[in-house]
Each structure stands twice: as structure tokens, then as C-alpha cells.
């Protein structure tokens, strides 16, 4: 059976474009504020939403996402709030996945989390610090509730490890474009295209590329070789900057919509990087 993610990726392939995947943390600046921001992203052209679950020890995140997650936690965001956010965003029709470090799911109980995520209309979860070797309980829970478990590959992954990861991923495979934490980069890593090619050699699954993409031009560049373009820190930064400068919610959503629209244009106009 095709999942919502499968359907979207298939449709995008037919249209000859990549999907735009946008990340924002739940609870920032508030739970309702984050829901409004995610909906604004979707309205401006984001195809798939990653709802971040703020975590106390975000070892894979750079300063922008760290700050937003920190503020969300200080604001008291809980796992239940994250699920409520998923429900509100999935109601727009955009496939919605949770992006989370493993311990919050471990604590909630993998089976219970899968049931509640599915009930909220979520499509699956991206779990970057859950390696395939430790994933059995989550795979079983996801399968039972029709969720897509998404795992990551990195430039350092051996071909054997890529096979291991693509063998258990559903929906899409998340290719980390570079060796490093989340955050905008001046240029998208040159390792990304190479990694996508190595992933394609092992699977029919769509491949989405994340880490470092922040502009429409970079999105267009990545769209030339990947099925999905994932943008996080650049979108979060719009909200963080608005919060710091005291700009109102309307202005923040406006800025977010403008960036999302620019990125959406990028994924529709793939540009091969000059070699």
C-alpha cells in the first residue's frame, strides 16, 4: 500500500520536480505559534513538514536549532504538544513527520508513540540517532501503525551501511549532505550528489537531501539530483530573528512564507551545478 509520502514523491517525480521538506521545532515560539508557522510554510509551497521534537541534548544540531529548541523547552513544550502540532499540520493535507532524537520516543514507549502519532495523522518519524542495529522495536511499531520510519545516510557511510539503512527505511531516505551538524552553509556539500548516487544504487526509495540548504538557488541545485530538498535552520532562523528583533507574528510568518516560496520555486527549477 502506498503511504502519503509515497504518493507525494511519485506525483512529484511525474511532475519532474523535487519535493520541498521544511523543518520547524514544535513549541517555538509557542505551541500555537509553531502551528501557525508550519501552516504558513505549507501555504507558501512546502510539500512535507518535519515537526521537530525539542530535546535537551541536541548533539546533531547547530546553534540556531539549539536556541529554538531550548526556548521551546523553557516554554514547557511536551511530547503531547508535539503530537497536537502534528495533528494540526497534517490537517492541511501535507504529509507530516516527526523529527526526533530517540530518547523522548523511548521514554514515551515506541508502541504508544507510534499509535498516537498515527492517530494524529502523522506519516512517520525521522530518528537520526537511532541506528538500524537498535531499531527493531521502532520498525515493528511503525509497521503496525502504517508509519514510515525514515533513517539517515551520511557521506561517511560505507556501501554496506547504505544497504542496511535503505533496507529498513520507508517513505524516503534522508541523505545528510555533509559531515556536520544542522545549520546554513555557504555552499551545499559536493559530497551530496555522490552520496545520492550511491543510495540510488541500492534502492528505489526517494532520496531527500538535508543539511546546509538555505536559499532558492541551493534548493534548485540539490533538486537536480535529489527527490527531496530538506530545509531546517534557514527557516528556523527567520523565526528566531523575528523573535529577537521583536517583530510581530504577522511579520515573522510573512518572512517565513517568502523564504518557503523562494525554496519552492527552487525545487521546481532544478539547475545542474557547473562541474
Amino acid at each position, binding site marked *: 500500500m502506498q503511504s502519503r509520502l509515497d504518493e507525494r514523491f511519485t506525483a512529484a517525480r511525474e511532475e519532474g520536480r523535487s519535493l520541498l521538506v521544511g523543518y520547524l521545532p514544535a513549541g517555538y515560539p509557542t505551541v500555537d505559534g509553531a502551528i501557525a508557522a508550519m501552516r504558513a510554510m505549507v501555504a507558501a509551497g512546502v510539500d512535507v513538514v518535519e515537526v521537530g521534537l525539542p530535546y535537551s541534548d541536541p548533539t546533531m544540531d547547530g546553534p540556531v536549532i539549539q536556541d529554538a529548541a531550548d526556548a521551546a523547552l523553557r516554554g514547557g513544550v511536551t511530547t503531547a504538544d508535539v503530537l497536537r502540532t502534528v495533528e494540526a499540520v497534517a490537517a492541511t493535507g501535507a504529509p507530516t513527520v516527526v523529527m526526533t532524537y530517540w530518547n523522548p520516543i523511548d*521514554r514515551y514507549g515506541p508502541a504508544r508513540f507510534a499509535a498516537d502519532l498515527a492517530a494524529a495523522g502523522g506519516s512517520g518519524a525521522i530518528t537520526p*540517532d537511532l541506528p538500524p542495529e537498535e531499531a527493531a522495536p521502532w520498525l515493528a511499531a511503525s509497521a503496525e501503525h502504517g508509519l514510515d520510519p525514515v533513517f539517515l545516510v551520511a557521506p561517511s557511510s560505507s556501501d554496506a*551501511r547504505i544497504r542496511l539503512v535503505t533496507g529498513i527505511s520507508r517513505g524516503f531516505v534522508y541523505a545528510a549532505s555533509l*559531515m*556536520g551538524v544542522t545549520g546554513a552553509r555557504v555552499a551545499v556539500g559536493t559530497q551530496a550528489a555522490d552520496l545520492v548516487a550511491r543510495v540510488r544504487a541500492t534502492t528505489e526509495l526517494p532520496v531527500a537531501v538535508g543539511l546546509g540548504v538555505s536559499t532558492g538557488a541551493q534548493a534548485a541545485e540539490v533538486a537536480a539530483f535529489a527527490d527531496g530538498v530538506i530545509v531546517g535552520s534557514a527557516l528556523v532562523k527567520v523565526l528566531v530573528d523575528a523573535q529577537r528583533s521583536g517583530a510581530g507574528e504577522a511579520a515573522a510568518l510573512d518572512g517565513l512564507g517568502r523564504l518557503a516560496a523562494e525554496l519552492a520555486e527552487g525545487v521546481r527549477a532544478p539547475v545542474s551545478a557547473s562541474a
Partner: protein
Amino acid sequence: MFPDPGGHFGRFGGRFVPEALMAALDELTEAYDQARADEGFVAELDGLLATYAGRPTPLTDAHRLTEHVGGARILLKREDLAHTGSHKINNVLGQCLLARRMGKTRVIAETGAGQHGVATATACALLGLECVVYMGEEDTRRQALNVARMRLLGAEVVPVTAGSRTLKDAINEAMRDWVATVEHTHYCIGSVMGPHPFPMMVRDFQRIIGVEARAQVLDRTGRLPDAVVACVGGGSNAMGIFHPFIPDTGVALIGCEAGGDGVATGRHAAAIAGGSAGVLHGMRTFLLQDEFGQTQVSHSISAGLDYPGIGPEHALLHETGRASYRVVDDAAAMAALALVARTEGILVAIESAHAFAGAFDVARELGPDATIVVNCSGRGDKDVDTAARWFGLLDDAGGADAAADPRG
């Protein structure tokens, strides 16, 4: 034997890290396996431990403490006499030799009390490696002496301002550095924690403490001790002294967790007594966390024990009952520190003072015929300022400060 090939100690341990680090952990595991079987590597490490670090460290008969506790024989394993002033040097020499063997030119480390950072800076200076140490900003203040020591040794010390600004946040920052620099950088983790192979490898490098202690006790007393007591932060000095005694089931292995203001107050660092099973820093283990799986901030007067987790092998030893863990709060540890200083003329680290406080209770429980080995994991020079404030020993200049809460 633990761990299994995936790094599991029963249901604990493993590797909960981003895929980007998996290749490096595989490479490290393989390099370590080869090095450990290579006579040249082992000889070089043993040589450095003997001629540079000052091993074997002595086993001291603490006669006046023995008298104080009512007769149980108290023997001190003197890791405070190792070069740089604590057991941390044992692990660091091993890992830095391994890093060099792997062709890495840069070493990063996290540090709480600063002892692991100082040891890493020392080994890097010795072996010509670039060294960067991450340290929570809060800890750079309470262990200022060690910050200066690291800088004198040529290391770059980076104060970490994220999160709680203590050891756990320094580890987060070191992991962020490592994922971006792993090609030429080794992350020298300072305790029996983190993703596989670290808990196993650090234990193996620290095992020398127990190997020596076991032989020294047998030689000195003609029998095995009744108990071995050590403080537990991440748990490396404890794992090091416990491990060779694990098959000796008549020897009680007792770890002392930092109780801070007391477990009941919620302000403590006792992962076993006051925590629950979960995942942190790449391992499944006991940790302080809330109902949502968010890590809780730990509290201890001892920077080196101020960590919300514990090494996965300790989690297993606790569950199987082979070791037992008790809690020593700030006040008991500081009282022990003062007592050891006055009765034996040894100023121990506040971390180690937790082991002494626990050992005094164990001595009274076991009675005058017992023999107890205490792991004196480090010396207390770095803690003089904290202790002086705690006991109000500073005169006028520091007088105002001394009246303030010494725990800051």
C-alpha cells in the same frame, strides 16, 4: 564476557549516534582490536605508564583511618600519585597512542573537573597532537586552576555556554565538533561512557588500577579484600578497579554516586539511585530524566561527578547485583575530605572523597576484621578553593565570599 560485539552490556550500552559517526566508531573499534593484540603497542603503553605516569601506584595502609572506623583495615589505591594527579592519565595515554596510530593529528575531549582535560592536554603535548578541550562554563569557574593548567600545556580550552554549562553540555559540544572533523580528529572520551567501543576501551585502559590493586592486596594481606569502594561519575575509576575483581565473588564491589543536596531534594547526580533507564550520549543506561525523556540537570559539589548518566557496564553490574551503589551527599563527602586530610595527610579530590565517605560506612557495617580497598582516584589541589569556601577557611580578602553558599 561483556560487551557483545555490538557493545551491549546486557540491555545497556550500544551505539545511539548519528549515521555520520558510525564509520568512525567502526574504524576505532577495529584499530583498538588490532592495537590491543599488537605487542609493540602494548609495550609502548606499558612503558609510558611506568616511566612517565608513575605506575604502579602504591597501596597505602591508612592506619589512622583504620583506627577511626573501628578497626577495619583501610587500604588506599593511590591514583592521586599518578602523573597529572588522577587516574585519568591511564585512559588518555592509551587513547592518544591509539589516535596517533590511526593517523589522527587532533584530539578533542570534554572535561568536568578538568582532570581528564589536563590529562588529555598532557598526553597531546607528549605525543605532539593538537588538543581542544570542551568545558562547561560553570566548570571553568569552579575549576579555574585546571583551565590554566590545560592552557599551559598548550591545549585550547573552549568554555561551553549551552544548556546547563556543565559536563553533559561539554560532551554535546565535543560530539558536534567530532562529526565535522572525524577524518583527522579523535574524540578522547574521559570515562566508561558514550557509544561502543568507548565504555569497553576506557575500562580496559583503566583496568590496570584493579590489576595492580588485586596483586598488592594479596601480597600485603595474603588474601582478597572484603570490599572495593570507588566513586562513580561516568564510572571509569570504579570500572577500572572493579573489573579484575568481578570473578572474585566474595569481594563486594561498591560504587558511590554523588548525592548533592540529597536524592530526595532532586538536586543530585545519582543516576542509579535517582534515575531511570534511557538513552543519552550514545548509550543506553541509567540517567536523570523527566517523564518526557528530557535529561535533567545534575547537581554535585564535585564537578567530576556532576553528570546525569553512568557508564553502561555499571548499569549492568547494578541490575545483576554484582556491584552495589550507594549515595554520598555533598556534606558527607566534604566531611570525609577533611577527615582524610587530617588523619592521613592526604588532600584528596572531592570526587574521591565520596568514595572515602562510602568506605567509612562500609567499614562500620563489615566490622573490624574486614579489609577494604578505597580507590583514591585523584588529589585535591584543584579543589582547595571550593573546600576553603565550604569550611570558611578564607580570611578577610575571601571572608565575604566564604560566608556565601560554597556550592555556588
